[in-house]
């Protein structure tokens, strides 16, 4: 007998159990968990791709991971931060600007570092050959951007709002609209790959990737804020999303390495 793929109700019940178990653990004194657990069963692809043995703590002040790669003006071009100008024509969709600051946990700006962005187009289709979602590709949109943070740690992208898209985690699974982000800090330990979401998306409670962050406040930190002051008249809607990188760095990095 072939197992039926799980329904949204099955996955929803699993997600609720994971949330309840986390809430109970915190109530019993367990620490707040900022990051998703790697063994989050409702996200089916995680089943065989998470270690079962505990991570080994490294508290070596000489660790090479306390420093990290640097990037500069050779690594980005002027057009990279504007995903709407990478082709001869304008992409379809709702033009947006997304801006924010990249900080470490002490609140210090991460300066001159690389921020990478990739996303689906306005119809919810990636310009990736393995994306078989039958939504139109847009010849004027690739959906890849890069920039360097400035002296305040700020980044800015101009793009279009991506569409929601289906995936095969369970029957009738849909991802809420999101931007994929990749970030570098002052140390390799601060590396972060994550996703930014748009406020008020009705798909939030149904999505096991967002819900893998079982802490409500932490989950909210993945959702950008609509900021009317950032909207540009007759041009684009503005969203603000600040990013805080976890992990230690060598103390010499505090003195500024650039």
């Amino acid at each position, binding site marked *: 007998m072939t197992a039926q793929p799980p329904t949204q109700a099955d996955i929803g019940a699993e997600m609720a159990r994971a949330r309840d178990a986390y809430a109970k653990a915190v109530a019993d004194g367990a620490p707040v968990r*900022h*990051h998703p657990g*790697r063994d989050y069963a409702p*996200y089916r*692809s*995680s*089943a*065989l*791709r*998470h*270690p*079962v*043995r505990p*991570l*080994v*703590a*490294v508290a*070596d002040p000489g*660790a*090479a*991971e306390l*420093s*990290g*790669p*640097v*990037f*500069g003006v*050779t*690594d*980005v*071009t002027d057009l*990279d931060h504007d995903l709407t100008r990478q082709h001869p024509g304008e992409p379809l969709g709702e033009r947006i600007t997304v801006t924010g600051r990249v*900080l470490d*946990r002490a609140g210090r700006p991460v300066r001159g570092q690389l921020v*990478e*962005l*990739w996303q689906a187009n306005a119809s919810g289709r*990636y310009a*990736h050959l*393995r*994306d078989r979602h039958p939504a139109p590709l847009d010849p004027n949109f*690739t*959906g*890849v951007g*890069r920039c360097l943070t400035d002296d305040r740690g700020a980044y800015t992208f101009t793009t279009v709002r991506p569409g929601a898209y289906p995936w095969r985690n369970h029957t009738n699974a849909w991802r809420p609209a999101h931007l*994929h982000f990749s970030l570098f800090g002052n140390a390799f*330990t601060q590396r972060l*790959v*994550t*996703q930014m979401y748009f406020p008020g998306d009705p798909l939030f409670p149904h999505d096991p*990737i967002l819900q*893998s*962050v079982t802490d409500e406040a*932490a*989950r909210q*930190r993945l959702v950008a804020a609509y900021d009317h002051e950032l909207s540009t008249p007759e041009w684009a809607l503005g969203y603000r999303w600040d990013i*805080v*990188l*976890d992990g*230690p760095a060598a103390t010499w990095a505090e003195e500024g390495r650039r």
Partner: protein
Amino acid sequence: MTLPPTPSQTVGPFYGYALPFTGGGDLAPAGHPDALTVHGRVYDGASAPVPDALVEIWQPAPDGSRRGAPGSLRRDPVTGRFAGRDATAFTGFARVPTDADGHWAVRTLPPGGVPYLAVAVFARGLLHHLYTRAYLTDAPGTADELLSALPPDRRATLIAAPEPNRTYRFDIRLQGEGETVFLDFG
């Protein structure tokens, strides 16, 4: 002041047209006499190769400098495409996607001051990337704090096995039998 961090999310299945770049594994200049190759496969908990993982390497330069250098993603000013590194600055950073066989490879120079390459692994299905280290066993200073604290079977997962022609084999097992030691820097 301590700010709560932004949570990690999986890299997903579709980073392949966004994150990899030309020459991503070519840390060593072409023809450099000290160049070595580090390669291996990424396996899941069923011992199947993972064809959609992304491996990143960070390491000190041969002279021990940990400052890195820009230019890993150097661009052609005319076309905007990736031009490859400039063959003089050692950036210390590599990024390579696994192929259909779960295989990855980098060509680099020996790290100065430490006997290992720092490794980060990203994959669809992995909600938060994992850190490990590829120790190059014939490099100096293998009396290492991390290695010496591990039982032999666990330690073995961090040792890149020497092969002919200055090549080292480093497989990454995400789960199960022979599971790689993954690291927590706090």
